C-alpha cells in the first residue's frame, strides 16, 4: 500500500476533538433547555407521588413503615427517592432518544460523522445523560422537604459533602451508562419492555424503602439484590445523607459505582460502535 498522509497529530488533534465533544454537549443542553418543562414534569411526578402517599397520606391515616425504628420512614425514603430519580432519568434520557435515533430518525448516522472517534460520540451521550440525572436528583430535595404530614419531616443533612458529590456523580454516570447499553441493544418495538422488565424490577428491588442491611431476614434476597446497581446508589446516598441509618461500607458501594460505571460504560461504548460501524 502506498504512503499515506498523517493527519495533524497530538495536542492539536485533542483540542479539536474536545471542542467537538463540547459542541455535542452544548447541543444536548440546548435541547434540554427547550424541553425543560417536560423534563421537570417527568422528573417530579414519581418522587412527588411517593412522598405524597408515604409521607403525607400514610402518617395521616395512621399507617407507616419503620425500617430503622428510631427514624421516620420519610428519612429512610429520601436517599432512595433520589437514587430512583437518578436511575430513572439516567436510563431514560439516554436510551429513549437513542432508540429513536437508531431506528426512526437515523439521526445517529449524521452524528457519528462528527470529526471525533465513534466512542467519543457515545461517551458524550453518557455525560449528557448523567447531567440530566444529577438535575433530577437535585429536584427531589425541595419536594421531600415540602411534602409531608406534620411531624413526618425527613431528617437529612449532608454530613460529608465530598462523599455526597461522589455518590451523586457516580450514581448518575452508572445510570447513564446503563441507559446507553440499553439504548444500543433494545429494538424500538420492544421499548415498552424497558420499563416493565428493566426499570421497575430495579426500582422495587433497589433498597429504596429500606436499608440493605435490614434485609437480613431474607438472606437469598439480600444477596440477590447485590446484582442491582440501584442498591449501591441508594446505599451511597444513604451513607452521605442519613449516616445515622445502617448502610454499606464505603469500599463496597464506591467499588460498585466506579467499577460499574467504567464496566457498563465500556461495554456500552463497544455495542454502540458495533451498531454504527460495520
Amino acid at each position: 500500500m502506498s504512503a499515506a498522509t498523517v493527519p495533524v497529530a497530538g495536542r492539536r488533534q485533542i483540542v479539536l476533538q474536545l471542542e467537538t465533544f463540547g459542541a455535542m454537549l452544548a447541543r444536548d443542553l440546548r435541547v434540554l433547555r427547550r424541553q425543560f418543562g417536560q423534563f421537570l414534569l417527568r422528573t417530579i411526578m414519581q418522587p412527588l407521588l411517593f412522598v405524597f402517599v408515604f409521607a403525607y397520606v400514610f402518617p395521616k391515616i395512621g399507617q407507616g413503615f419503620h425500617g430503622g425504628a428510631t427514624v421516620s420512614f420519610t428519612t429512610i425514603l429520601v436517599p432512595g427517592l433520589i437514587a430512583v430519580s437518578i436511575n430513572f432519568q439516567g436510563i431514560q434520557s439516554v436510551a429513549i432518544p437513542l432508540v429513536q435515533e437508531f431506528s426512526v430518525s437515523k439521526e445517529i448516522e449524521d452524528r457519528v460523522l462528527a470529526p471525533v472517534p465513534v466512542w467519543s460520540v457515545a461517551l458524550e451521550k453518557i455525560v449528557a445523560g448523567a447531567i440530566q440525572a444529577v438535575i433530577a436528583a437535585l429536584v427531589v430535595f425541595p419536594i421531600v422537604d415540602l411534602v409531608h404530614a406534620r411531624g413526618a419531616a425527613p431528617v437529612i443533612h449532608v454530613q460529608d459533602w465530598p462523599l455526597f458529590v461522589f455518590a451523586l456523580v457516580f450514581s448518575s454516570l452508572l445510570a447513564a451508562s446503563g441507559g446507553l447499553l440499553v439504548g444500543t441493544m433494545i429494538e424500538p418495538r420492544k421499548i415498552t419492555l424497558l420499563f416493565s422488565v428493566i426499570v421497575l424490577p430495579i426500582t422495587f428491588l433497589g433498597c429504596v424503602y429500606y436499608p440493605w442491611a435490614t434485609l437480613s431476614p431474607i438472606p437469598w434476597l439480600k444477596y440477590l439484590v447485590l446484582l442491582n446497581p440501584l442498591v449501591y446508589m441508594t446505599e451511597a446516598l444513604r451513607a452521605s445523607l442519613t449516616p445515622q441509618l445502617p448502610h454499606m461500607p464505603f469500599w463496597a458501594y464506591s467499588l460498585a459505582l466506579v467499577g460499574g460505571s467504567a464496566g457498563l460504560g465500556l461495554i456500552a461504548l463497544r455495542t454502540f460502535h458495533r451498531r454504527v460501524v460495520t
Partner: protein
Amino acid sequence: MASRPATVDEAAPIRTVGLSKVYRSGRETIHAVDGLDLEIGRGEFFGLLGPNGAGKSTTIGMLTTTVVPTSGGAFIEGIDVARHPAAAKRLLGVVSQTNTLDRQLTVWENLYYHGRFFGVSRDEARRRSDELLAQFALSERAAAMIFELSGGLAQRLMIARALVHRPEILFLDEPTSGIDPQTRINLWGILRDLHAAGQTILLTTHYMEEADALCERIAILDHGKMLALGSPRELKADYGAETVIAVTVDGDGRPLAAEAEQIENVRRVEADGSSVRVFANPADGVLVALIERAGAVGLSVRDASSLPPSLETVFLSLTGREYRE
C-alpha cells in the same frame, strides 16, 4: 480505461486502492465491493452509477468511515480513512439517503450546531448558517422545526448542513431517489452551482440521466466491481450507445427499412407501419441519407426525429436487463 490519470496522485481528494468489503452471514459471503481502484481529482464532479446492490453505498460508507474495509484502502486527501477516521471525517460533508436532520433542533440550529461539531467558531457558525439558509432559499424557515419541512426542503437543508464546515469533498448518496421532478431539477441547479464554485463532489445514483446531466466522470459499478469508467461522452462512444432516428413516411415503411440497413454506421432498423426507427453510431449524415433513400423508393418523409445516445443503453449493456430488488 479512457480517462484514468496516468500517474497516481497521493493527495487526491479521493483515492481507493483495491478497496473491498466482504459481508459474511452464515454460509453466505457477499462481496459488496470487490477490489475497487478509484481516483477522483480536485474540483471533479464524479458519479458512481449502478443498480441497487451494486456496492455504491458500501463504497461511500468506506470512504466516510462508517464501513470498515475488509481489504484495500480508502484515502481522503491522502489520509487513510480506516486508520485516522476522525481526521478524515473533518474533511467530509455527507448527504445520506435518509433524512438524518436533528429533529430536536430548528432549521437554523441544525446548521449552527453542525458547524460547531466541526470546530467552526461560534461567530463563524452563526454567519455560515445565515449565509447558507439564504443561498438555499431557506431563510424564511430558519425557526421552523424539522418535522414542518417538506421532503424537498429537508433535502436542501441536508445539503446546506453538509457544507457548513466547508468540506473538501461533498458526498451525496442517491440524493434524488424518491423526490419529485421539480425538486430534482432544483437540486441539480444547486449541485451545478457548487461544482462551478470548485467543490469536489461524489454522487451515487441509479438514475442514468442524472449522472449524464451532472457528472464529469462516471464509474459504472455492479456486483462490487467497476465495469466502466469515463466521461459520459466517452462511455457512450466506447460502449456503442446509439442515436435513434425515427422517420414517418407516407406509405409502407418496409421498403425504406430494407434500404436503411445499407446506410453506413446503421446498426439496427425497426419498421412499424409507416414509421421506421434506425439505430446508428455515429449518427452523422444518417438522417440525410435516410431521406434520400426514401425518395429513391418513392416515399416522402413526413416527420423525422433524432434521440441522442443515452447512458441507459451503455448501462443496460453492461449490467444486463434482469430485475433487481
